[in-house]
């Protein structure tokens, strides 16, 4: 990204000599880099050509009276090879509107901060190429979570659901310092479920989670799967875990719409894991006598 900014600076520098209106010049003073004249927020800009992409970004700010009514802002972003939606948002924030708010951190799809609703689908902004999307690119905060500001949603309910399944390793009779070995086969079994980055895309895409706030949701159930299937935990602990997920608002709420599996940025087979836990829950309660 740093090299990218440097390139922008170089290409923009010759532009500073060109005549421009007062508004653009004022903007130019505010920003470190020059703003191209065509890249204003207005609809009557130059429109779309091969070099720019139009972003329509959801805006809402409860603390500013004029912004309390949600609206969409349009940004024209100069398109570059390999530009992600997050890059485009960062450009819009740095160059046009510093009040544009969104979460991001690592920019390489591992921190799980920038799950957004992009063109009607939950995706990671940093993992989605702008060139792969239909224009204008419509960016909204994750559905089914309350919007705090612009693209930032309240994740506390998601985190509560994740915590509800005890997402940490428990083992009763392990001596201090003893190594806990896992077979290769068992590691392979839980491999995909460990890849969860807590981005909340699955929970947001889930129709059932939207209507039932108590439903654990795909991410939490996947987290439960990761520990239930881990052989290193004792059978008693596995039974405890199964008791949590076989509750009324546990695995049985899943109606296999596959929405979570489709949006998961880490390609975790969430529905498959939920179905497997359903079978585990049935087996737990089956008694032949």
């Amino acid at each position, binding site marked *: 990204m740093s090299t990218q900014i440097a390139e922008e600076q170089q290409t923009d520098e010759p532009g500073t000599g060109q005549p421009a209106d007062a508004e653009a010049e004022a903007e130019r003073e505010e920003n470190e880099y020059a703003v191209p004249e065509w890249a204003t927020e207005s609809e009557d800009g130059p429109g779309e050509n091969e070099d720019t992409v139009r972003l329509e970004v959801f805006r809402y700010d409860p603390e500013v009276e004029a912004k309390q009514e949600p609206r969409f802002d349009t940004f024209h972003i100069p398109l570059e090879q390999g530009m992600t939606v997050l890059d485009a948002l960062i450009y819009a924030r740095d160059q046009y509107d510093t009040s544009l708010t969104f979460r991001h951190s690592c920019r390489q799809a591992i921190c799980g901060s920038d799950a957004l609703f992009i063109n009607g689908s939950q995706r990671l902004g940093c993992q989605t190429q702008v060139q792969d999307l239909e224009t204008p690119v419509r960016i909204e905060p994750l559905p089914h979570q309350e919007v705090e500001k612009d693209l930032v949603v309240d994740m506390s309910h998601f985190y509560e659901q994740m915590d509800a399944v005890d997402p940490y390793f428990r083992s009763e009779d392990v001596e201090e310092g003893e190594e806990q070995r896992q077979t290769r086969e068992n590691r392979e079994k839980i491999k995909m479920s460990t890849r969860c980055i807590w981005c909340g895309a699955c929970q947001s895409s889930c129709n059932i989670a939207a209507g039932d706030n108590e439903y654990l949701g795909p991410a939490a159930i996947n987290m439960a799967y990761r520990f239930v299937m881990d052989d290193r935990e004792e059978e008693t602990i596995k039974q405890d875990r199964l008791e949590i997920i076989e509750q009324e608002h546990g695995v049985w709420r899943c109606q296999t*719409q596959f*929405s979570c599996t489709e949006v998961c940025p880490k390609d975790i087979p969430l529905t498959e894991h939920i179905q497997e836990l359903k079978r585990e829950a049935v087996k737990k309660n089956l008694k032949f006598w």
Partner: protein
Amino acid sequence: MSQSYDRGLVEDFGRWQEFSAGMWAWVLHKFTGWVLIGYLFTHIAVLSTAIPAATGDPAVYTGTLQSLEELTVVRILEVGLLSVAVFHILNGVRLLFVDLGVGLGSQDRSFYASLVLTGAIVVASVPTFISGAF
């Protein structure tokens, strides 16, 4: 944050164009399920009132069914009932495999397959249901 914005449920139904295969399968399965339940009760109501238990006259039953079958609307609705039932059966089999954890990777293709198969069966049944109706 003192205030937050709840966008409500409107967005869910406004976005039907963005539904994926699994979502459509779910919606159609729910819809056909309710239609079948509705049909079941209508079926019981019509037949139980037409059964000649009260009158002791078999002609009542025959007459009821014959007059129903004479209506073009009923013939067309029968085709609709068949398509609803066949889709519900085929998608039910698909869901059975999903519950068993078989072929989850091709769940969208199996949904399309059940749609196509439903269409084929319904089209093949049209001559039987509609013959003599018009």
